[in-house]
C-alpha cells in the first residue's frame, strides 16, 4: 500500500510473511492540524491479527475481537454504514478510512456519516492515498488525523490545510451554510 513501507523486509521468499512482518508504520501524521507521531501501526493483512499493539486492522478482523483497546478498525471505501456496524463502531478507539486511490471520494461521505449521523467523537483517520490537496476537504468532512502518503511533504500539507478561510456549505467543521451566516450577521447589524 502506498502510504508506508513495511517495517520488515523479507529475508527469505520461501516462508510466508506474518502479519507483523507486513505491518505499516505511519511516518507522516497530522492530527488536529499539527504534525504528530503516535504508536498506531497499520495492518492490511486480512487473514491474521498481528501481535503488535496498538494496531489498526481490517474491519472484519476487528469485529471478531471486541473490546480490545489496542485494536482499531479501518474501513474500506465501499463500506456500507449499516445501523449494526455503526453501533459496533461506537466502541472503536479510533476509526481509519482507507483511500485506495485519491480519486475515490467515498471516504468523505463515510467520515461525515460517522461524525454527523452516528455522533462518533473518537479519532477518524484518513489512510491510503492521502495527498496534500485533499486535506482541506477531509478536515471539513470530519477527519482529524491525516496519515499522509509517504512521498507527501509536510510543509505543503500544512499550507494546503489553511487554503480557505471561508466556505459555502455546512459540514463537520462549520454548522451553518454561508447563506445562513449572512442572514444571521445581517440580522445582528
Amino acid at each position, binding site marked *: 500500500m502506498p502510504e508506508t513501507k513495511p517495517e520488515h523486509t523479507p529475508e527469505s521468499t520461501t516462508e510466508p510473511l506474518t502479519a507483523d512482518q507486513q505491518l505499516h508504520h505511519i511516518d507522516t501524521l497530522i492530527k488536529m492540524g499539527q504534525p504528530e507521531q503516535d504508536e498506531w501501526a497499520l495492518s492490511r493483512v486480512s487473514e491474521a491479527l498481528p501481535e503488535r499493539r496498538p494496531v489498526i486492522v481490517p474491519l472484519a478482523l476487528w469485529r471478531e475481537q471486541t473490546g480490545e483497546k489496542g485494536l482499531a478498525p479501518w474501513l474500506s471505501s465501499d463500506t456500507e454504514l449499516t445501523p449494526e456496524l455503526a453501533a459496533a463502531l461506537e466502541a472503536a478507539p479510533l476509526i481509519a478510512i482507507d483511500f485506495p486511490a485519491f*480519486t475515490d471520494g*467515498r471516504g468523505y*461521505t463515510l467520515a461525515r456519516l460517522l461524525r454527523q449521523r452516528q455522533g462518533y467523537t473518537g479519532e477518524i483517520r484518513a489512510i491510503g492515498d492521502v495527498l496534500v490537496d485533499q486535506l482541506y*476537504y477531509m478536515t471539513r468532512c470530519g477527519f482529524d488525523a491525516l496519515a499522509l502518503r509517504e512521498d507527501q511533504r509536510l510543509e*505543503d500539507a500544512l499550507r494546503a490545510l489553511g*487554503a480557505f478561510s471561508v466556505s*459555502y456549505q455546512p459540514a463537520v467543521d462549520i454548522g451553518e451554510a454561508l447563506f445562513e451566516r*449572512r*442572514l444571521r450577521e445581517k440580522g445582528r447589524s
Partner: protein
Amino acid sequence: MYRYDSYDQTLVDERVVQFRDQMDRYLGGRLGEDEFRPLRLQNGLYIQKYAPMLRIAIPYGMLGSHQLRRLAAITRRYDRGYGHFTTRQNLQLNWPALEDIPQILGELAEVQMHAIQTSGNCIRNTTSDQFAGIAADEVEDPRPWCELIRQWSTLHPEFAFLPRKFKIAVSGAAEDRAAIQVHDIGLRLWYDDQGELKVRVLAGGGLGRTPMIGDVVRDDLPWQHLLTYLEACVRVYNQFGRRDNKFKARIKILVKALGIDEFRRRVEAEWAHLKDGTQTLTAQAVEAARQHFPEPPRRPVEDSAIEASEQLRVENRAFSRFVTNNVTAHKVAGYKAVTLSLKRREHAPGDVTADQLEAVADLAEQFSFGECRVTHEQNLVLSDVPVDELEALWHALETHGMANPTVGTLNDIICCPGGDFCSLANAVSIPIAQALQERFEDLDFLYDLGPLDLNISGCMNACGHHHVGHIGILGVDKKGEEYYQVSLGGNSTDDASLGKILGPSFFREDVPEVIDKVLQVYVEQRHEDERFLDTYRRIGHKPFKERVYA
C-alpha cells in the same frame, strides 16, 4: 446579476492562491502528472492536442459588460484574441500557456469570475434558461435558485471526487430551454394550484456514450428542501455510483441499474436525515438571493414606438428577417430579447473575437443595462432591449458580424471544438459545420425549412449534443479514418427524445449531400407548417433511410 460580497471574493481569491501553489508544485516536480490532473481540471484546465485549454465558468450564463471587457483583454494578452462559448454556458480559451493560468485566474477573480469546477469529476457549472427573468412563459426566475446551487456546490468538501462529472440544469418556464431532461439532475420550478412553489427533480439524464432521458425522482419537492434534497441525491451517487469503469460511472447508469424506484428510495432514506436541517431554505434566504436579480429600471415605451417598430418590419425585409429569427418576446410590453448570432461561416460556431466581446460589452451598456447572457446554443443574448432601439442595435450587430438572421434555423449549428482542438475527439466537427453552413446559406431556403436543430459532436462524449439535435452528426473513428454518423429525431426541449441512427456512417465530404437528401424528404413529405421533427415523428425513419442509402 449576482455581485460578490467579501465572502465570495475571499473564496475566489484564495482559490487563485491555492492553484498558483499547485501549479508551482507541478512545475517544480513535487506534484505528479496524475495527481495534478484532477486539480487542474477542477480549475477548468485541460491539456489539449496543441495547447492547454482553459474553461471559464459563466454561472447560468450571466455576464456583465465589465466582465466581457476583461475576457476580451485576457484573450488578447494570453491567447490569440478569441474565445469559444460552449454548450454549457462556459467560455473556453484555446491557446493559453500553462504557466500563465494562475495569472489569468487572478485577473478573472478581479471581475468576480473563475474557472472553478468547469471540469473534473465534481459538480459542474449550473446552467439555465437564457431568457430567465424576462420570458413571458416563465413562472419562476431560475437564477436565484441557480446561485444558491452554485454556492452549495462550490468546493463542496464531500463531492470533489465523485465517480464522474455531474451537471445540473434549472428551468422555471413553461418551455424548457435548459435541456433539463438530459442532465445528471434537472430541476423544474413550478407552482401547484395552492400557489406553492415546487421543484420537479429529475435524475439520470445525460448524453455522452449512453444517452438517456432523466427520470422523475420527485415531482413536488417543496422549495425549502432544494439543497438538502440535492445533497441526498449526490450523496447516494457518491456512495453507490460505479467507480470501476469510467464509461459506466455517470449517475444515469446508477439510476438505470437500481431502477428509479430503488434510487428514489435510497435518496429519500438519506434525505430523511437531512430534511429540515441546516441548509433548509427560508423565505429570507431566497429573498436575499432574488435581490441580486432585480428588474432593471426599464423606461416606458410608447405604444406609438411599438407600432413604429412593427411598421418597420413591414417595410424592411432584412430587418423583418432579423426580428423574426433573432428577437424573442419579452414579458414587458415594448421590450424584446435579442439573440446575437455567433454562427457564421468564417468562424467556428460559438467562437467570438476580442473585438466582438468588447462590442457586445458596449452594446449591452447602450441597449440592455450592461448585461448579456450566454445560450446553450452558443449564442449571446441581450435581454432587455426597448423596441424603439431595435433597429439601431440591428445595424450595430451587422457591423460586428453578429446579426446573422438565422437563429433557430439549420444554420444555427451547435458544434463542439472537435478534432481541430480537442484531444478526445475522433473527428473534426468545425469543418463539417462550415461545409453545411456554406451549402445551406440561402435564407429563403432556411426559413422555409423552419425551426431545425442540427448538432455536431466530434466524439461520443457528445459535447455538441448530437443526440438531441433534430439532425445529429457524430464523428467516429474507424481504423484511423474519420467518418460521420447521422441520427434523426432528437430533441432537447419538453418532449425530449434521443435521435436514432440513420445507418452506416459517411465520409466527411458526403455529409452535406446526405443532409440535403434528408431535407428533401422532409420538404416533400411535410404537412403545411409542420416542423422537421414532427414530420420525422409522423413518417418515421424509413423514408429518410431509403433516400439517403438509395
